[in-house]
């Protein structure tokens, strides 16, 4: 997968019609290409949370995610002149982030050091999560913090492509088509990876799911 995903990310035709938001993005990109740093600052603000979150869920480490997210936007700025607008800026930056993260994880190999972010207060009120920590769970003493740690450990056991598909689809809510475009593979590959990754996770977290 990674070999097919070049760092500067080849552009593909955008499938979606241009929305007002997309038009505004095109204007910002053109300004940024001419050296307007304020315009680039706007672009960073638009996507910083999603890019950071993707990297964070892949690494389970806030500090690494911070460094890699910053490096992603700096690299994107350096390569901005080569961006022709064939794909959306969003997809293009995502590819840079994904490639950077996968390269980083390969260098890190199995030396996983988790540095997890705190759970938002609202997690305690999510009905799905409340149900998981209910009497249906064999580990009734398991709180959300323990579940968070076990879930991240299980995620780190997945291979990078499988972890990426789960992150983009089940955590960030991207469509199969978008994931296929970011990962530069077909939709069937995305689906089969998602199936396998969920199956793996279910096995790792069996004690917390039955």
């Amino acid at each position, binding site marked *: 997968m990674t070999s097919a995903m070049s760092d500067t990310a080849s552009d593909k035709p955008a499938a979606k019609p241009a929305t007002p938001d997309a038009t505004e993005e095109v204007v910002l990109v053109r300004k940024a290409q001419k050296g307007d740093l304020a315009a680039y*600052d706007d672009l960073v603000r638009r996507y*910083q*949370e999603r890019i950071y979150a993707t990297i964070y869920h892949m690494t389970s480490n806030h500090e690494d995610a911070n460094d890699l997210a910053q*490096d992603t936007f700096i690299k994107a*700025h350096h390569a901005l002149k080569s961006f022709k607008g064939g794909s959306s800026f969003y997809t293009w930056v995502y590819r840079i982030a994904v490639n950077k993260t996968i390269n*980083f994880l390969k260098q890190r190999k199995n030396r996983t050091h988790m540095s997890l972010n705190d759970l*938002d207060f609202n997690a305690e009120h999510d009905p799905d*999560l409340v149900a998981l920590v209910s009497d249906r769970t064999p580990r009734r003493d398991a709180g959300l913090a323990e579940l968070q740690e076990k879930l991240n450990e299980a995620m780190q056991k997945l291979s990078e492509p499988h972890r990426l598909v789960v992150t983009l689809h089940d955590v960030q809510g991207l469509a199969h088509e978008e994931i296929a475009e970011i990962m530069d593979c077909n939709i069937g590959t995305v689906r089969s990876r998602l199936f396998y990754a969920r*199956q793996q996770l279910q096995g790792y*977290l069996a004690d917390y799911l039955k």
Partner: protein
Amino acid sequence: MKPENQDFENIRRLLKLKRYEQPPPRYFSDFSGQVINRIRAGYPADRAESLTATLEMPWLQRLSSVLDVKPLFAGAFGAVVVGVLVGAAVYSDEVDIPTASPSLAVSQVPSPAPVTPVTVSVPVGNSGAFALGAGSSTNAGSIFDRIGTPSVQPVNHTIFRQ
């Protein structure tokens, strides 16, 4: 069975937990500013990768990579190496002298010849007289010769000549 038909409802629910993992408050309010500052300062885009790669190198390769990119370090490193070599050479010369000299000096001293007292006259200054013994160094050419001798008087000294 198609992949979509398998029930992964529980694992999907559990994965929702990750959406609640949030970085520290106000983290994103500073983020873009840091990126723009790094762009203005001309920072490289591969900080994390280069750091990780550097940490994984053996020490010799790491040293070499530091010297490659920083000529000042390379110069300083070269100067230190040369200094150590010169210091080692000087130290080894100094160590050789005391080991060889005393034994040779003792063994090669000729047997004393009959001593004949000789009286010579040496002009010296007011500071007083001094005696020259056999084998001692003379003061010829010394900086003390340049000091003026306002009142010179002849003084008789007795020395022993072999």
